[in-house]
């Protein structure tokens, strides 16, 4: 498995990480029309990778192909290989339900279940046969999502009474309760106000030590602030992929430079 040299920003110490997801010439087609074209890159363990690019560049499509959520969209087909810890996600022997159980997802708009806060967290683990203490798991997940203090006295209340930012953190907690290996986030802050956005960005730093995170965003500042690696996509092509620092300060491609300096997009 591939290894990457990585400079930790806080300790300046070199750390190595291993590949969790390896994309090999991945194309995603909507009824034959390519939305993502031959993308190759590697997602490293316990790192935050952001995918940026103008609207319609295929970044969300690419993200959804990483946990096979595209299976539910009519007419989608995939070419190339996506290796998840060495195994092909689209292999014949792979059950997509199993893939989604290991690779969690947070969506663009908060989508809590119309149930209690408690049940929002507990449903996923319970249908997957979780046998430990559910109360503990709910508390731990809500704490990890920095929501526990705000909701601990009203766990039985409906999740729909929470604010938008709280709902999104609930959705993150819900995904974390499954203890996924990878957490995919599809523009998780686009429906939120700046304060809620800051909450969630802080949260990403906390989660980084335990999870591998891939985040799609069209907010370049957000990508620069939170991520270790950045992928820049345009019209379905992966234009440039590298450490965030390098992408934003010393981009190799002209197009990347134009985008990150705000000249288009």
């Amino acid at each position, binding site marked *: 498995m591939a290894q990457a040299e990585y400079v930790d920003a806080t300790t300046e110490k070199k750390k190595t990480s291993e590949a969790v997801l390896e994309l090999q010439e991945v194309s995603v087609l909507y009824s034959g029309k390519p939305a993502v074209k031959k993308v190759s890159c590697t997602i490293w363990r316990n790192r935050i990778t952001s995918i940026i690019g103008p609207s319609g560049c295929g970044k969300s499509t690419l993200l959804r192909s990483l946990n096979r*959520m595209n299976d539910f969209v009519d007419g989608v087909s995939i070419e190339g290989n996506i290796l998840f810890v060495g195994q092909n996600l689209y292999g014949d022997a792979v059950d997509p*339900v199993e893939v989604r159980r290991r690779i969690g997802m947070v969506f663009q708009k908060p*989508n*809590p*279940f*119309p149930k209690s806060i408690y049940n929002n967290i507990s449903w*996923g683990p319970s*249908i997957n046969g979780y046998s430990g203490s559910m109360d503990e798991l709910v508390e731990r997940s809500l704490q990890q999502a920095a929501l526990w203090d705000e909701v601990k006295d009203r766990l039985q209340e409906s999740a729909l009474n929470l604010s938008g930012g709280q709902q999104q953190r609930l959705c993150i907690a819900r995904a974390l309760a499954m203890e996924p290996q990878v957490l995919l986030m599809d523009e998780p802050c686009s429906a939120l106000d700046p304060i809620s956005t800051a909450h969630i960005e802080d949260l990403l730093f906390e989660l980084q030590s335990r999870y591998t995170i891939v985040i799609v965003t069209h907010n370049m500042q957000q990508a620069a602030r939170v991520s270790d690696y950045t992928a820049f996509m345009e019209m379905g092509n992966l234009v440039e992929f590298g450490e965030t620092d390098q992408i934003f300060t010393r981009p190799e491609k002209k197009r990347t430079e134009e985008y990150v300096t705000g000249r288009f997009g």
Partner: protein
Amino acid sequence: MAFLSEKEQKHLVNRHRKSKLFALLCAFVTWSSVFLLGILLVNIAMDGLGWLDWQFITSFPSRIPAQAGIKSALVGTLWLIVMIAFIAIPIGVSAALYLEEFSKRGRLATLIEVNIANLSGVPSIVYGILGLAIFVRFFGLERSLISGALTMSLLILPVIIIASREAIKTVPMSIRYAALSLGATRWQTTWSHVLPSAFPGIMTGVILALSRAIGETAPLILIGAASYVAFLPKGPMDSFTALPIQIYSWASRPQVEFQELAAAGILVLLAVLLLMNATAIYIRNKTEKRLK
């Protein structure tokens, strides 16, 4: 006044007048239909209320109007409601779930959809003929409750399927995606999230369909529900009568007393209908509150 020129002002007054006129027209149409319904109810109540007492509800039909009652018809109708509910709801809701959640979009699905829509417009007497040929004759179920219930179930299945599908369609995709992204199977997603969210809408459709079924007369006449039944059905294989049949049979007699008995029967039928609708609204409001 000062904002507009004289010409614009005139035009505006004219537009406001048209708007008011249309609102009045709508109000008139609405209230006139309510008014007509009111007259009908009062008319029936005046004829029937005098006959409507405990004796009427607890007696079997009789040749003597003063002793005649609606017991066997009321019990027959209650039997029918319960049996139709047990047959039509599971099949109808399952079909709707299959079409909305599981089947692949394609020619076959479209064909089935078009057919269901068409079936909901088929006259009820045609279902009666179908019931007579299939359930009464072919399956040899005789003129029994089960034949009636099966025929009525066929009649209301398209209505239940269409209403349930509409209710299922209103469940946002984001809820399904949320569940699926947690490693749920399609069935777990459907059972835990789609069905509960669609439940109030499905309930409404089901109750409307059941209300239609208990008011139907033609299919029951065709499959041979009896109009003079002086016993209560003990099981689904027994012969039976139902409220609309009893009403029909009384109404077709020349004597004034029987006409009035028919009116009393209609009052009982309306009471059953209102009770069912009230129950449905109660259940719906309760589940809607739970979801919020």
